[in-house]
């Protein structure tokens, strides 16, 4: 008997549709505590597969019979074995997550944010398992990418479907939590690759320096991408205003949190920049701008339509990180009690600088776990 597989795409739909799934996670307790498929509508049970090798009888009565039970492991092998054992015990509602947490970490859901003023479109690519967000701006046969992940085919295929040529690729900053696909996409499509020069002092490849106030047109309509120097998470962090409507805030400002300043080892130095960016530079922008960040941390940050977006004015009212009057208190919040640093963040930074080129399998391992770029 072959076991029923659930694809990461189906799983993503269940998360977004708020379905009530039972997850049987058979990874180690450490791995489960570190990172799992998040949904407040899911129920979870964690028991490592190696504790089930002698049989699954002991857990049978703890599993529901009236809804889907999805077995999840690291790569999809152990979950298959456990799902098969459960089927042999007569369960019919069991699935194995195809490709496991690795595939889950790589799954991207393109969600349309909106049409742009002159007929273009803006898409948000939600990397639901890891909480990374990237963007494609489409206009009149041209496409620009912002903060692309290493799943480069997804963007290239998507642009092809839209009959658009990728002409510009941007990274808002040198990422520490995931490996950028920007440089590779730019090479493949002959697009221009833009990086903030202050983040790129150690990179070993050619790039177009992205300076404050730079305007880049996508298509022959007037979809300007306006770069805004916004240091804090990294010294070079740059935000974009697209089509006068959208603020791509990178890892500086999220929906329910703000960027952490410590991932390049400079928390004390950059906390002042972070405060200035959030409390002065961003304050001068229109409240009507829709903030599109590079990450989300919790599923609550997703809107009903699956996008992660909120008006800047609303964030100034509701985001705790934008409402700390006292500068010392702010300093304390972003330098003390920080969450653990992302997995392999040093190696990820070096990869993004082009200093090391790990095999794809190693890149997957490096990216395991949540993004942890924020501080609340």
């Amino acid at each position, binding site marked *: 008997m072959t076991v029923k597989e659930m694809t990461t795409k189906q799983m993503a739909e269940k998360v977004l549709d708020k379905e009530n799934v039972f997850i049987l996670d058979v990874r180690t307790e450490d791995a489960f505590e570190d990172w799992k498929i998040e949904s407040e509508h899911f129920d979870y049970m964690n028991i490592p597969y190696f504790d089930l090798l002698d049989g699954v009888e002991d857990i049978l009565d703890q599993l529901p019979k009236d809804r889907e039970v999805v077995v999840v492991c690291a790569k999809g092998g152990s979950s298959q074995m456990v799902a098969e054992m459960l089927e042999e015990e007569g369960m019919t509602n069991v699935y194995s997550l195809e490709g496991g947490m690795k595939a889950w970490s790589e799954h991207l859901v393109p969600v349309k944010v909106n049409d742009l003023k002159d007929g273009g479109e803006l898409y948000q690519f939600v990397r639901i398992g890891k909480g990374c967000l990237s963007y494609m701006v489409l206009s009149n046969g041209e496409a620009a990418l912002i903060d692309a992940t290493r799943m480069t085919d997804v963007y290239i295929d998507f642009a092809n479907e839209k009959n658009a040529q990728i002409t510009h690729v941007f990274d808002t900053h040198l990422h520490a939590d995931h490996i950028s696909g920007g440089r590779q996409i730019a090479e493949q499509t002959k697009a221009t690759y833009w990086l903030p020069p202050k983040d790129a002092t150690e990179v070993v490849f050619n790039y177009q320096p992205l300076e404050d106030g730079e305007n880049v047109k996508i298509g022959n309509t007037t979809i300007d991408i306006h770069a805004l120097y916004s240091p804090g998470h990294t010294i070079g962090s740059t935000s974009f205003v697209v089509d006068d409507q959208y603020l791509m805030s990178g890892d500086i400002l999220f929906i329910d949190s703000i960027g952490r300043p410590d991932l390049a080892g400079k928390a004390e130095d950059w906390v002042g920049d972070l405060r200035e960016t959030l409390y002065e530079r961003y304050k001068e922008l229109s409240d009507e701008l829709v903030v599109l960040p590079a990450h989300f941390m919790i599923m609550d940050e997703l809107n009903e339509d699956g996008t992660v977006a909120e008006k800047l004015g609303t964030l100034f009212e509701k985001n705790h990180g934008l409402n700390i009057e006292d500068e010392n208190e702010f300093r304390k919040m972003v330098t003390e009690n920080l969450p653990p640093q992302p997995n392999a963040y040093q190696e990820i930074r070096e990869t993004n600088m082009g200093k090391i080129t790990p095999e794809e399998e190693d890149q997957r*391992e490096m990216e395991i776990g949540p993004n942890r770029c924020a501080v609340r």
Partner: protein
Amino acid sequence: MTIKSDVLLDAKGLACPMPIVKTKKSMKDLEPGQVIEVQATDKGSKADLAAWAKSAGHQYLGTIEENDVLKHYVRKANEDEEQEKKHPHVVSNDELTQALNEEDTVVLDVRESAEYAFNHIPGAASIPLGELDERADEIDQSKTVYVVCRTGSRSDLAAQKLSEKGFAQVYNVVPGMSEWSGDTTSNQ
């Protein structure tokens, strides 16, 4: 470094869950106290094997990576390690820490060489209990010998053996490496 093991399991090229499934199976053929070397290429096998060993009561010693091959070392649980200790001269870990500064102190580690390789007191000599009869003359009889193992049981047997062979100053260190908080080193 080369590490001695009693059984070699080739799990190269196998994806999860197979490295653990095979290890669990091979473990049945090992004598208690013996060490298995599991060669695997699945990167996830390291965390899984360590967690499995803990859950099954075995002793995960460590992993060495060589040319993309992960070599894991696990020692099979030894149920009779909790036996009564008979050697009359016993010192605590703290007392050994003090004695390390003395000129005539010799630390003799009688655990398996794979256990020793991953974690031992700097300067300790390694003679596994099973080899002590043949190799006891490697230790200077005129020194004060502190015998360590993981929990104090193997070192108890070793201390008795050394006394029989005429060593005058022999101490069993209890509990030994399982709770050693001082400096350690590895062969790597």
